[in-house]
């Protein structure tokens, strides 16, 4: 078998995704392609199936119909080790952080590295210190337990863990939910800096227009069971649809957009 071409331009490719919960159809014939290096924000109303779509990409759930391709390969393709190595190419930041509460922060970040089984203890220590520095935490934080961290710190530690195995794709579920505006803005800056430094592709779910306006290179609007529009923010705003009207052109939306355009 040939090694995969240097880097397929499409990192995530969803084709004809249909999801049903009982009689409730969440997605119907949904398509989405995420190109390398993009920061794609997935927006949609509550219950529109954003998190479900993210879970399809991670492989935690399987759609009723349709295919999920990551890095140009089918998500379920290959044997156990092939699937495992594909899973190690992306990192996930869950909404609540999902840090292992019985481990310290340092052990949490070291966990995926230990599981990989090829790194020495000294390398793991150095890399944990490096990942902590990347997310702007101090080495002393490594001995804290997750329960001792504030909400913003939990997100940072979870991001450090998501970055542990040098992922090419980062999946973020509500990265700034529950953070105050200042922390939220600094978290956004952090992810943008990492995106620039590491050449990451980022898919994030967000309700926060500030986050969206500050980060996303493209906005995927999930409504009516499909991707309604998939374009940069300015073009998305021109789409005529009740959801986009409500979501972006409300008072809060106007403020956030004014700030974003002012900043640019």
């Amino acid at each position: 078998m040939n090694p995969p071409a240097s880097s397929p331009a499409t990192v995530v490719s969803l084709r004809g995704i249909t999801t049903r919960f009982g009689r409730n159809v969440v997605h119907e014939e949904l398509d989405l392609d995420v190109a390398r290096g993009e920061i794609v924000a997935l927006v949609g109303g509550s219950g529109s199936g954003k998190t479900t779509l993210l879970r399809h990409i991670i492989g935690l759930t399987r759609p009723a119909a349709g295919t999920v391709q990551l890095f140009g390969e089918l998500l379920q393709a290959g044997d156990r080790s092939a699937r495992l190595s594909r899973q190690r190419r992306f990192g996930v930041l869950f909404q609540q952080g999902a840090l292992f509460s019985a481990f310290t922060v340092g052990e949490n970040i070291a966990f995926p590295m230990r599981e990989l089984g090829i790194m020495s203890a000294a390398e793991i220590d150095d890399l944990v210190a490096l990942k902590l520095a990347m997310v702007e935490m101090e080495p002393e934080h490594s001995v804290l337990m997750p329960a001792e961290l504030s909400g913003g710190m939990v997100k940072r530690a979870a991001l450090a863990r998501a970055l542990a195995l040098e992922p090419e794709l980062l999946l973020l579920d509500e990265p700034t939910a529950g953070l105050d505006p200042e922390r939220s803005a600094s978290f956004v800056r952090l992810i943008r800096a990492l995106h620039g430094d590491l050449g990451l592709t980022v898919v994030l779910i967000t309700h926060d227009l500030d986050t969206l306006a500050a980060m996303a290179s493209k906005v995927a609007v999930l409504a009516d069971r499909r991707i309604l529009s998939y374009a940069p923010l300015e073009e998305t705003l021109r789409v005529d649809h009740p959801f986009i009207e409500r979501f972006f052109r409300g008072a809060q939306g106007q403020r956030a957009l004014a700030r974003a355009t002012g900043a640019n």
Partner: protein
Amino acid sequence: MSPGGQAEARQGGSLVLTPASARLSGDWTLRALGPQLPGLRRQLRMASADAAWSLEAVERLDSFGATLLWQAWGRRWPTQLSLRPAHRQTLERVARSAERPLPQLSAFTPIDAVVALGGALIAFLAHVRDFVALLGQIFLDLLHVLRHPRDWPWLEISANVHKVGVKAMPVTALVGFLIGVVLSYLSSLQLKVFGADVFIVNILGLGIIRELGPVLVSVLVAGRSGSAMTAQLGVMRVTEEIDALAAMGVSCSLRLVLPKVIALGLVMPLLVLWTSTIALLGGWVSAWVELDLSLRYFVDALPDAVPVANVYIGLSKGAVFGVLIALVACHFGLRVKPNTESLSANTTASVVTAITAVILVDALFAIATKSIGIPG
């Protein structure tokens, strides 16, 4: 290097060593290096930081590759180094964070042993203090509801009675029946040898009603309901539900602890009665098969063999054990900290402590009632 070298390097990093120089090429990333890592590590160990390092042919360098190199260089910059600016940034980041290593846990010393011992003692005293405080709180709550009958948590008590009592009946009956069968079978084998068949009624009656029934039910209830109470209170603590109750001015001990204690205190004697009856029935079945003892004889002989005081002892043991199990379960439940380890440790401690306490108190009962209800 030649273009050919680069094409090959797509599959992973490689290293060409001469005594005075080290020339790197290809992808120095975690994924690309993975398969050939042991060989590369060996090569890197032979290389010296004083050689001329050339990283210009390196295609990609991630923080793992940079850490690998930084450690190979002995955590300092080599004297001669040429590389692309982007890769220098990556290496600088590794160098910066390596200056501030993680705090290391120190090795175990005799002083730590003393500290651990002292810590255990203090923890034990804290347990005793908290338990006494819980007892006091329950007592105050009882006084309160006696003076304000409207505040009795009837609904919670009844829900707990259903949960720990009614729903526990099948499992206690099953275990009681089987224990009765086994006990009776083994005893009757022995009794047959001596021709003392009829004494099976004395053995089963006294053993089950006075001793085995209450202890057996306590062990089952501690494992079944005690652990559930601890886990429930623990999770309510973790999810801040207890704080939410306190914020609404609802007393946690009055609504959560007191109903459990009262319910288990009420229900346990009934469970003891139920389980002992079923265990005696199981004992009779076995005696009927082995010794051909009729049910009529069994029932007739039971009151003569077992003075009625034993029933009262068994029932009061049940009530005391029930209160004890509920108190221990609530005590540990309220100590759960918001992590999985603490939840599992406290649930385990709750069951183990409850069973141990029950057996200790059972010994006290045995001494205190040694002249009551023993026939002959």
